[in-house]
């Protein structure tokens, strides 16, 4: 018993730390103009300056304040991540419900599409898609969604398959309720906790993918402060100005770690047995 309690507290602790990290990021996103000492595009004559009181994390090759750029960058990272997760949830859950509920040929087709998207490394497919649609934050969000909905579909599909045979859903069928109303009234409410868990856990990986794309130069363009892009620009000055890469790196770890811990906590609370 004591062991179980200890485990619970440990998990709770991680959840608490996750929440603190998470709320800090949200505050930064909201109050970015108040926190940042400069704007993200403001240039100065102090190029590649070391961290000082005026520029807490130094400046880049154009004399822009790294700290301010990273603060404003949180807006890009978070909005791209959230939009990507919303789209992938919509695609993934819809396909999962349709495949699980109707079964047969539809299920086979959906399963085939899921397997296919899973056989191309996600980041590479996303790169190809952004290339096709043009480099912008919006297209990165779409590309990330297009390559990562399969996880939702697999889990939701399995869940719907087991729900489908419950007696009250069979009863609803006999009463002549339409498929749509059965799905909306009886199936979807049972999926809410699963969807919440999947979405919270998908957010950190969406943010990581966004920064990876930014690192490769795909996504928001200069002078927009994309975390991945600030970092990749900093690599060429790694010998003379190593501080450039520190602030965006720390910001990414802070955000992704916060969301990961939060997601684990949510999972532990809602459905600890769910295998993700």
């Amino acid at each position, binding site marked *: 018993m004591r062991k179980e309690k200890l485990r619970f507290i440990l998990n709770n602790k991680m959840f608490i730390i996750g929440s603190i990290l998470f709320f800090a990021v949200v505050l930064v996103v909201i109050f970015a103009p108040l926190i940042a000492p400069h704007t993200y595009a403001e240039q100065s004559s102090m190029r590649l300056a070391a961290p000082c009181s005026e520029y807490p994390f130094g400046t880049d090759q154009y004399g822009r304040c790294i700290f301010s750029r990273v603060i404003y960058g949180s807006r890009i990272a978070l909005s791209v991540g959230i939009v990507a997760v919303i789209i992938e949830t919509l695609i993934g859950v819809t396909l999962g419900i349709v495949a699980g509920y109707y079964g047969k040929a539809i299920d086979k087709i959906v399963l*085939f599409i899921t397997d296919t998207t899973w056989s191309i490394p996600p980041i590479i497919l996303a*790169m190809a898609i952004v290339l096709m649609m043009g480099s912008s934050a919006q297209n990165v969000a779409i590309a990330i969604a297009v390559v990562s909905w399969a996880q939702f579909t697999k889990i939701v599909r399995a869940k719907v398959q087991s729900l489908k045979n419950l007696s009250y859903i069979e009863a609803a069928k006999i009463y002549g309720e339409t498929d749509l109303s059965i799905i909306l009234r009886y199936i979807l409410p049972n999926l809410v906790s699963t969807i919440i868990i999947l979405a919270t856990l998908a957010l950190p990986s969406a943010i990581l993918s966004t920064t990876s794309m930014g690192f490769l130069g795909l996504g928001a363009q200069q002078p927009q402060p994309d975390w991945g892009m600030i970092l990749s620009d900093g690599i060429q000055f790694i010998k003379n100005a190593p501080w450039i890469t520190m602030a965006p790196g720390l910001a990414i770890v802070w955000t992704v770690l916060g969301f990961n811990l939060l997601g684990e906590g949510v999972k532990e609370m809602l459905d600890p047995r769910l295998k993700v």
Partner: protein
Amino acid sequence: MNDIIRYIAKRLVIGVLVVLFVTVLIFAIMQAMPGDPVDLMVDTRVSAEKVMEIKAQWGLDKPPVVQYFYWLGNIFQGDFGTSISLKQNVTDLIAQRLPYTLMLTGAALIIEYLLAIPLGLLAAVRKNRLTDKALTITTVVLWSMPPFWLGVLLMMIFSIKLNVLPLSGYSGFISLILPALTLALPALAQIFRLTRSEVLDVMDEKYVTTAYAKGIDNRKVLIKHVLRNALIPVTVMFFLSLPWLIGGAVVVENVFAWPGMGQLLWKGIAKQDFVIVQGIIFVITILTVICNIIGDMISGILDPRIRLE
């Protein structure tokens, strides 16, 4: 035995269909790409007739469907076409670079599993004690690290501060260490967690209790009874995690200027050289599909229940 063969045959057929579907997908994406590679390549002073002539030479004047089958036919003869920007045979380019990417992913896989499995076992045995907590927290942090930043940090420590390892590029085996670590460490978290949770599950099984009740040595039970069963899902994961690892390699190769396919892909994308991009995505997809099939086969052999699905 019969059901194993049927199961494998089924997986193979699906694998071939997936590859064909992916070729259509790649081709469609490349067709929809903005900008014409020939227009990008030639000077604006070149006459329109000359441009048409070049397009005809590359087969770009034909309808897309014809181009697709033309491309597919060539691929199956091992010819990925000629790169538009580098004017070299793409098959040769890929053949030069594939060994480096395989070397990098292979080394990363070895590091990942050599660390993750013993650590996962250790954490499970010491469940909820300090070791377990420390390992869990470390892996969560690693899991949240963007590989490119981890690479930069390792570079700063080992190449710039200590000056013991090369900064980037390829100059023999020693160059492999930093990129392989960069690729392996974030990926390690997943295998660590899987091993830990599987070991914990197996330790609750009756046959483990029986083994202990029979008085078998603790270490023997752990290795022969627990680890052996817990590693089935880990083995399957080995093959399923490869696409992510290869995707990660594309990013890591660009951090360390590693002369693999990821860098070539990156050059192809920057120059909108769709011959290169198509070829590389195709090779990577084939590799992934093969890995998925092997993973499915192994899980089917190890766990008979899966075959019946």
